């Protein structure tokens, strides 16, 4: 994906007589467009295959919108990132729709909502925003803005989860939607912690460095 974006950016920059910096900006934007499009389409496709497209997309967007502000651990290639995202969203959507909804009870769900949100608020309060070497956050002003954004998004998700929980008796699908928001937030919160870094680091090691070493 990155290679394709860079080749396309080179072609565009050569054709329009842009300098190297403008070419790098175009490549950066193209990587984002290509990766987000492919990942969302694959999650939608696999979601349709397991008959849970809405659930898979809720998990995807609840994690990724929070990630935009809170940052977190990163895969080393866009392909690996797409693979992890598609696998997590599809498998947990499957789990939510066919298992967790079957054992859904209002009181344990209320406890799960309170626990997961309390833990996420705490982790975000202590760690967010978590930057990466490829995109360090340099100014205090931006750090504050990212933290504020993370709290705001988490608060909106909390209200949405409560709405889904309150109306889950009238609309059966809301049970799965509430569970999916929790699964999306849990994943994103995990990637902020040292355990998340260790986990994604292991995947990077297993699938990239080991392959290179062979």
């Amino acid at each position: 994906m990155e290679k394709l974006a860079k080749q396309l950016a080179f072609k565009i920059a050569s054709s329009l007589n842009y300098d190297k910096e403008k070419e790098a900006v175009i490549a950066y934007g193209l990587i984002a467009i290509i990766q987000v499009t492919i990942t969302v389409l694959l999650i939608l496709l696999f979601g349709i295959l397991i008959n849970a497209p809405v659930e898979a997309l809720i998990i995807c967007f609840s994690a990724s919108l929070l990630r935009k502000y809170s940052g977190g651990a990163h895969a080393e290639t866009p392909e690996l990132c797409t693979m992890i995202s598609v696998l997590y969203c599809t498998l947990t959507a499957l789990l939510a729709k066919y298992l967790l909804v079957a054992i859904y009870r209002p009181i344990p769900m209320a406890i799960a909502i309170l626990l997961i949100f309390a833990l996420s608020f705490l982790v975000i309060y202590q760690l967010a925003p978590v930057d990466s070497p490829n995109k360090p956050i340099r100014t205090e002003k931006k750090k504050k803005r990212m933290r504020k954004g993370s709290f705001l998004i988490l608060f909106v998700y909390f209200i949405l989860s409560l709405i889904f929980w309150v109306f889950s008796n009238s609309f059966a699908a809301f049970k799965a939607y509430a569970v999916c928001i929790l699964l999306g937030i849990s994943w994103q919160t995990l990637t902020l912690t040292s355990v998340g870094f260790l986990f994604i680091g292991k995947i990077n090691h297993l699938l990239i460095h080991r392959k290179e070493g062979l």
Partner: protein
Amino acid sequence: MMKKFYGIIAALSTVVAALVASSACILFAYQPEEPKSLRD
């Protein structure tokens, strides 16, 4: 014709790059190196 198309792609990807620059990272779990002109 091709130049016009490239111009549209360049403009669109520059807008997306600027949007990504204002966040902590790209939406998913991969972060390419940020170009110098987008750093704050």
